């Protein structure tokens, strides 16, 4: 009886899966067109899956092994099942391999089941709770029906009742695995995920056989010359189709939620919920079915939307509230953690663009900052002619006078901030000590456009960027050095699309190079315990984790690492205009970060970003002092390596004195 039933069941499940896939593809195709290479993408799936995606998943060994067993077993079992039971090719080794595959899958599903017994808060519940049972149903029933095929059991073993029960279990398994995969069950992640890898909007994120670090973090520019092109994303269908596909790939593992600083601070943002809301919007409906952690302070079930309905309502509620989108610090921790390589930050900025460019609704000080950027080229509304006042006594060489220099020192808007001026003075001292041939743009410099872009004002960003590029094109220099990772990122990764290609160095990288070249010598470190805070825009955005640590090591400092450091570093709360839009939460992000610092027992935290300095120094009653790496280096400078032991040259960490 099973012989006749199995091919029908399998064929039926496959047919339903194809119908479902067609429907799913139609949902994605509601999005705007995006050029992708179909065949190349499909061909890249195995490598992208096995190398890049696995690299992320493998950060949790247990889950990685579980997934290898379950997914690997399933893919093998599914293919072989079609061959063995669907087409009746049971002879030889195929049946045995199918047995082994289903057994492996069963073993994996046991670990999945164990995981689901006391799941952490970040995991979604709901349909996901039945997944281990479905996996077991599929693997066990496949195993059982294959036993007769390889001759371990007689063909007519058991009664028809047993056969019926077996068929029922198999139907459950097939239903979840094939039907559910394309009709929206938990297994959807496998189908959408594979295609998402193929047609990812940032193919540069994946490594190639030739190597390459596989990093693509710059935001993509809007075409402002085309007056018909939409300004950002208003409705789910305004996303590109591969973005929608990416949202559909989410496995709701909640790794993003676990690392999101805004979520931890009780601000109304949960990256996982946001992606799920986009899926809800794409298909139409309400978020009532969502079974994970909600946005803090916002109950589930009150929002709904459709593919062509607004995501953020002008008044009242739609799919997502505006403060959810403005809570994001664009720290990319969620993107870095996401095993499905979903681009949360791109989506958030896309939606912000619409709110700023079309609604004119940048919250709190956002509108004022953007107005200042338009009128004065800096977010504080300061006189552009006063940009160099801090350096009146330093006689900095100006590019306008020199025309060329080896290093162009990009000062950033920190030039107006009294705290950051100390960092800049230190950096100048270091550059002079190392005899670097450098010059500054002086009053010709403008804001890099980072804040404007991340607040969604692409028009102001492009205006600033184009003018900066025009200024830079007047001069000859080998590289740009800056102590602001935000300028570093924008100049290095985002100006290229607008026609400005530069070699940009963060000052920590540059100082490390100078030290390695023997141009700097330091007095031995006499201070206390020091920890290092990785700025998001230096670390996750640009992969620079080592240079700052090398500089600290050269200073004789042994870094007491925080639990969350390196690519898992927690944001200071100052990125992405979050300090400007200032969405209230239960606690402040910098307070949490200084808590992390406190846990290491360090009495000083070294940073490499003016935003981080400002945010972390704004923490009241903190146990640690905040110093930029440039300040530490400038304090430890000694004349020549020979005099390194000269005590009179050594300065304590407290004395911030710059000649």
């Amino acid at each position, binding site marked *: 009886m099973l012989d006749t039933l199995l091919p029908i069941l399998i064929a039926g499940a496959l047919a339903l899966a194809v119908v479902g896939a067609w429907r799913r593809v139609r949902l994605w195709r509601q999005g705007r067109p995006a050029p992708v290479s179909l065949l190349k993408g499909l061909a890249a799936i195995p490598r992208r899956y096995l190398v890049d995606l696995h690299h992320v998943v493998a950060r949790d060994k247990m889950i990685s092994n579980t997934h290898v067993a379950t997914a690997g077993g399933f893919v093998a079992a599914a293919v072989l099942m079609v061959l063995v039971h669907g087409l009746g090719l049971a002879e030889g080794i195929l049946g045995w391999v199918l047995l082994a595959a289903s057994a492996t899958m069963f073993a994996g599903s046991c670990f999945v089941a164990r995981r689901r017994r006391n799941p952490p808060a970040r995991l979604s519940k709901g349909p996901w709770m039945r997944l281990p049972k479905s996996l077991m149903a599929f693997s066990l029933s496949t195993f059982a029906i294959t036993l007769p095929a390889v001759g371990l059991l007689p063909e007519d073993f058991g009664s028809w009742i047993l056969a019926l029960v077996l068929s029922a279990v198999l139907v459950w398994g097939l239903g979840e695995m094939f039907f559910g995969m394309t009709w929206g069950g938990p297994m959807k992640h496998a189908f959408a995920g594979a295609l998402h890898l193929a047609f990812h909007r940032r193919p540069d994120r994946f490594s190639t056989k030739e190597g390459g670090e596989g990093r693509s973090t710059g935001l993509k520019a809007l075409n402002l010359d085309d007056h018909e092109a939409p300004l950002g994303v208003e409705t789910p269908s305004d996303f590109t189709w591969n973005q929608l596909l990416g949202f559909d790939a989410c496995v709701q593992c909640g790794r993003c939620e676990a690392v999101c600083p805004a979520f931890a601070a009780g601000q109304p943002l949960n990256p996982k919920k946001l992606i799920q809301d986009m899926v809800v919007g794409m298909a139409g409906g309400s978020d009532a079915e969502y079974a994970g952690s909600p946005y803090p302070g916002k109950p589930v079930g009150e929002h709904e939307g459709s593919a062509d309905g607004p995501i953020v309502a002008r008044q009242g509620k739609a799919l997502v509230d505006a403060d959810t989108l403005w809570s994001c610090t664009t720290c990319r921790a969620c993107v870095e953690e996401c095993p499905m390589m979903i681009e949360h930050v791109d989506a958030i900025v896309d939606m912000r663009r619409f709110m700023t460019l079309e609604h004119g609704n940048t919250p709190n000080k956002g509108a004022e900052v953007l107005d200042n950027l338009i009128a004065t080229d800096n977010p504080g509304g300061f006189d552009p002619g006063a940009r160099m006042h801090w350096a009146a006594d330093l006689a900095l060489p100006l590019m306008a006078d020199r025309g060329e220099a080896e290093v162009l020192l990009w000062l950033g808007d920190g030039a107006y901030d*009294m705290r950051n001026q100390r960092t800049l003075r230190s950096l100048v001292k270091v550059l002079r000590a190392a005899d670097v041939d450098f010059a500054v743009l002086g009053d010709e410099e403008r804001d890099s456009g980072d804040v404007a872009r991340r607040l969604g004002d692409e028009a102001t960003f492009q205006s600033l960027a184009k003018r900066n590029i025009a200024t830079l094109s007047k001069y000859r220099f080998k590289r740009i050095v800056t102590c602001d990772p935000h300028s570093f990122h924008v100049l290095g990764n985002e100006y290229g699309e607008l026609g400005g290609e530069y070699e940009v160095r963060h000052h920590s990288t540059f100082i490390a190079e100078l030290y390695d070249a023997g141009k700097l010598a330091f007095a031995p470190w006499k201070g206390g315990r020091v920890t290092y805070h990785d700025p998001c825009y230096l670390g996750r955005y640009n992969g620079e984790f080592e240079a700052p640590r090398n500089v600290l090591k050269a200073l004789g400092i042994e870094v007491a690492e925080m639990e969350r450091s390196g690519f898992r570093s927690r944001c200071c709360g100052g990125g992405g205009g979050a300090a400007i839009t*200032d969405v*209230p939460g239960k606690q402040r992000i910098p307070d949490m970060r200084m808590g992390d610092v406190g846990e290491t027992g360090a009495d000083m935290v070294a940073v490499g970003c003016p935003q981080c300095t*400002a945010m972390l120094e704004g923490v009241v009653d903190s146990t640690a002092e905040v110093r930029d790496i440039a300040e530490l280096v400038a304090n430890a400078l000694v004349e020549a390596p020979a005099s390194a032991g000269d005590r009179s040259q050594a300065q304590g960490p407290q004395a911030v004195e710059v000649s």
Partner: protein
Amino acid sequence: MSEILRRDPRKEWIARNRLHPKHLEVLAELGRGAASEWMGPQGLVRKNPHAVGFMGPHGIRRIDRSGVQQGQGAGGARASAAVSKPRVEIDEPAFLVTVVPDMGGGRLSGHDRDLLGLARQLADADPDARGAVAVVTFGAAPEDVDEAGADRVIALEAVEGFAPERRLVLLEAVEREFAPRHWLLPDSGLGGGDLGRRMAARLGERPVTGLWQVIEDPEAPLGWQCTARGAAGSKDILRPMPRLVMALAECAEPISETRHAATPLMLEAGLPEVSEPALPGGVDAPWIEDLGQVPVDPAGVALSEAEFILSAGNGVRDWDGFHEAAKVLGATEGASRVAVDDGYMPRDRQVGATGTWVTARVYVAVGISGAIQHLQGIQPCEKVISINMDAGCDMVKRADLAVIGDAAAVLSALVARVQSARGQEGATESSDASATTDKEARNAA
């Protein structure tokens, strides 16, 4: 004021000797001559017997014929200096300079006095043909208008509240009857600035606004060039001075050394009626109806508008006491970033570079240590008072006055001090019911 009396035997002798040529001068200097004795218009010496003498320790008026002690009774050197100012009279003025002061609260404001100073400059420029300065008031002129430089006073009928049309019609009557050479009004927000522009539009005169400097220039039609602020204060416009002038504060030095006649002038033609022409729409309502001032809670005034801010920071523990103090002092509440982050104060109360930049005249920082961003935000404040436990913090360094101590205790002592002062004032001024409203109005001006 001089508490120690220094005796000058020679002057005392001259004061006793009525026949001494310097007798009157010395008497004036000692502060009694002008008050009790002066030269009348016909050249006769006039005496005021009531001004002679002083109150003795037992409440009995004593007259010291020696002429020494009388100066004391008149209230010391300052008061005597006021009455001894030379008197200036212009009987046959060549022209008239009319000044319409704002007179917030019924008194001449500093701005008004500056304007009178400017008017004198215009009137006295040609010593052969001096003009007279006429002050136009709605209601009675203030008593000290003579010392402010007014030769004439045109007291029109009192106009209460916001009734620009009525005032305009009255000024038109003055224009018709006296045809002054210059009209001067303070270019202040709601007073002269409004009235002057209405008048300019009515008379068809092109006025100068924001004037702050005049220079004599015989080439100019009225003999004067002027400099005025234009383009929202970003430009200076040099132009011949027209008839109608709206001038900024400190456009000239106020009059302080002379005393003028302040002779009343009457409108012969009587006061005209206001007629409001019909408007389309057929609605039967007055053009503008003043419903009076709206009570505004000082704590709720926008920080950027506030003149007096009481700001709380991390060092404040007793929040009820802080709010109470703000209420008693009539101050607008502000806060540091930390106080806002901790939820004690709403976000719109945050002062500093990341909150609101404030321009208050007095800024009281309670328990604020003074982060750089905060200090940047209060940079334009004139006077900063800090109440803080930590004498070494940056806010204490910035402050004009710093009190080191427990914020709650100092605030409650301050509240008690202010209330006791108000109590005393209430006792002395309760007879004058309008005193407080006058004060409010003056503050508002």
